[in-house]
Structure formats: structure tokens, C-alpha cells
């Protein structure tokens, strides 16, 4: 039977900030797609078949071929729909290397620090906060350099590093609420605060980002489900 759906499908979840990454990229390029919502407690057969190695979302399925790993998907989108929308990665090889480096840095640092701060896994909150704030300072300097005086890391337009960081920064307010601490402060990282306001207000981003309330509710639900006594 012919697949009558759109040629682009995205397997993911509205609560997953990694899923937001390819969604922003597809929005920037004006590419239409079917969004296939996953339940966090039960992986679909489609997810397991299309990502047998990691069994994780997001997965982009384009012409029935899967592409896995959020930033690899973003780069695939940029390289496939070249005539649609501005380039997501910069054109200069050194600028591209900086985008990739800071993305790898953020993906290495932020998820584990945020998890400690939110409390699902045990850890030292003051130390995690100190490390998190130190990382923000480095990114503040990187933003000054990469943006070349503009708002986004990508300059006038949202780029690869903006998309990568957006998914970590999307968690900041929820984490601040859950942990009762401040993380992103205008006094210490003014450029990043301004960047954050512009990023989350961008048309390609604002309608697909979960709200702080949704994320807090999601974390609370996951924590209580996982800590519930086995029946």
C-alpha cells in the first residue's frame, strides 16, 4: 500500500527538548512533516525499528529512510533542503567548527548537570550549580565571538548552535522552579539572557517549545511513576 502521508515524518515527543531541535530546523526551512508523538513510558514499534541502535527519539524518516540523533538530523535537514530558507550551519569552515565544538560541549555538560539540579539522580546541587554557571560564562564569551555583534550565534538568523543550546536552555526555567535556585541571571550573562528571549520568541521556535509548566508537570509525573512501589 502506498504511503499517503507526508514524505517527512518525525518520531518524537512534545515534552522532549531534543525533539524540538529538528522541529525548529524543519520550521526554519518551511518543510511540512507528520509529527508522530511517542509515549515516554512505551516506545512504539516504529521507533524501535527506525532506531534499533539507541531506541531513542527523535528520529526523522524521510522517504522511508531513518535519520537518528538530533543534531545529525538538523545537519541532514540543512544539507537536504538547501534551496529552502537560510543555511543553518555557517559557511566558513572555522565558524562551522566552532558551532560543532560548542554543541558537543553543551551536550556533554548540560544534560547531566540539569538532571542533578532537578533531582531525579542524586548529586551535589551547589557544585552542579557552580559548574552550570561557569559553563554559561563560557557560552556568554562564545556568543560575543560567534554572533559578530548580532543576536544569535548564527548571526541574523537562528543557526546550528542556537538550535542546540535552545534545547538545554528550554529546561532552565523548569529547573529553576524545581530546584528553587537561579541559574540564568542578567547580571552575570546579559547577552545569553537577551539571546534566550529572542530565541524562544522566534516564529520557528515559540509554538513548538513546551512551556515551563508543562515541563515541571512532566518531570513530576516521571519522578512519581519511577519512584512508585512495584506492584
Amino acid at each position, binding site marked *: 500500500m502506498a504511503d499517503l502521508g507526508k514524505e517527512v515524518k518525525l518520531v518524537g515527543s512534545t515534552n522532549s527538548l531534543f525533539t524540538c531541535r529538528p522541529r525548529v530546523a524543519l520550521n526554519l526551512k518551511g518543510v511540512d512533516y507528520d509529527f508522530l508523538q511517542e509515549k515516554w513510558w512505551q516506545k512504539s514499534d516504529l521507533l524501535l525499528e527506525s532506531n534499533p*541502535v539507541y531506541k531513542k527519539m527523535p528520529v526523522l524518516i524521510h522517504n522511508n529512510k531513518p*535519520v537518528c540523533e538530533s543534531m545529525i538530523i538538523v*545537519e541532514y535537514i540543512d*544539507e537536504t533542503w538547501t534551496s529552502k530558507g537560510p543555511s543553518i550551519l555557517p559557511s566558513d569552515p572555522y565558524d*562551522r567548527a566552532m558551532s*560543532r565544538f560548542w554543541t558537543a560541549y553543551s551536550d556533554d555538560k548540560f544534560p547531566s548537570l540539569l538532571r542533578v539540579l532537578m533531582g531525579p539522580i542524586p548529586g551535589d546541587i551547589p557544585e552542579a550549580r557552580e559548574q552550570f554557571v561557569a559553563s554559561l560564562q563560557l557560552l556568554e564569551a562564545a556568543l560575543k565571538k560567534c554572533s559578530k555583534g548580532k543576536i544569535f550565534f548564527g548571526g541574523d538568523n537562528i543557526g546550528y548552535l542556537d538550535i542546540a543550546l535552545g534545547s538545554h536552555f528550554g529546561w532552565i526555567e523548569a529547573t529553576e522552579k524545581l530546584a528553587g535556585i537561579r541559574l540564568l541571571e542578567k547580571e552575570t550573562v546579559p547577552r545569553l539572557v537577551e539571546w534566550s528571549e529572542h530565541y524562544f520568541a522566534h516564529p520557528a521556535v515559540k509554538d513548538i517549545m513546551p512551556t515551563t509548566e508543562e515541563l515541571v508537570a512532566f518531570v513530576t509525573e516521571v519522578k512519581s511513576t519511577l519512584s512508585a512501589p512495584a506492584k
Partner: protein
Amino acid sequence: MVASAAVRLFGMWASPAVRRVEWALKLKGIEYEYIEEDLSNKSSSLLEFNPINKQVPVLVHNCNPIVESLVILEYIDETWKENPILPVDPLERAKARFWATFVDVKCREESRKAFFMEGEEKEKAIENLQVQLKALDEELEGKKFFSGDHIGYTDLAVGWMAFWLGVAEEAAGFKANYDVKFPNFSRWMKDFLAEPVIKDNLPPREKTVEFFRAFKQLGSCTKVNQK
């Protein structure tokens, strides 16, 4: 040969991540100055060029530092267009990047655990590593190299396993049994190490085993100073 006196590479002789960059530079015929670092006493240049991770490899091109070996590989491919190491097709490029990060994040994690830990944790790590090797073995079905008939980005990324996995096994006393269980992967290891650019650019095996044996005896589970 592409003359490029403006290219410097900070490295350490036993580091697989550094060799990965050297293989790429040599495949493209790029001339470079190599600077050997003593990681127990890092040079001021290394700290200046990589203040964030303070790790090797660092490629410096026209005074601009680039760090993280896979980032460096993409930079090399985009800057010097001869002998491309990444494919042209976006889907093939995505697959190449997928396997590179799989090996760098997942396989390296389990190899490190198998290397440093003992008892049940070691056995579990070896088991996980074998599941990963099976995936790599299946990916190689019908192909000489991950990148096809010639070595490319994915082979350079996975390449550390062809040499350093055996070194780790000997230094730490474990066997992942790929020669028995994963024939495609085992065959790829031999073919990869036989490639002229690779075999002429490996550290001496015995010295490397001794190095890692001593490293294990330090008893630390912290990350090696290289990425």
C-alpha cells in the same frame, strides 16, 4: 602534496584521537608541524589554544585552534577538498556521523569500563561492548570499509578500535572476542590496519600496551586527557 606551513597539531604519541587527526591530514597530503605534549606538564601553548578542555588533539590552522577530534576531521574535510573523507549524499553523511558518534560515545564508554573495572562491572561492560560490536559488524555486511571501497570518515572515527581495543584488552586482561563472534568487524580491523596511511602511522604496540598498563595501575577512572 598540499603545502601548508600554517598547520600545527598538538598531540600525544599514544592517543587514538590524535592519530585519527593525523590519518586525515596524511590522507589529504597536508603538511603539518607536530608538537608532542607531555600531558602531565602541559605546554603554555596547549593551554592557550585549548583553555576549556586542556586536551589533545588541537589543530591550529592560520593561528585558529580547533579542538575535538571529530570536529577537526570535518574541518579538515571542508578546508582541504582533495580526497574527500565524507560522502556527498546527505543521508550517507548522516549515517557516517551517526556511527562516528556511536563509537566515540558508546563504545568508548564501555571500553573504558571494561579497561578500568573488575568483576561484575567489567563483565557487564564487555557484554555491552559486544552488543555494540555486533551493530558495527552488521553495518559492515557487504562492505570492505564503513565508507565503501576506500577508507573515509567513519573508518577514521572507528579506527581506534582496530588498534587500541587490542591494546586495552592486553593491558587490562579481557577479551571482547570479536575475532570469533564478529567476522566482518574482525576482517575490517585487519584491512584498516593494512592501509598504508594507517600502518605507517601507529604507535609501537608494545610501548603502547605498557603505557596503558601503567595508566590502569594509576587506579583512576577519570577521563584520559584526550578527546
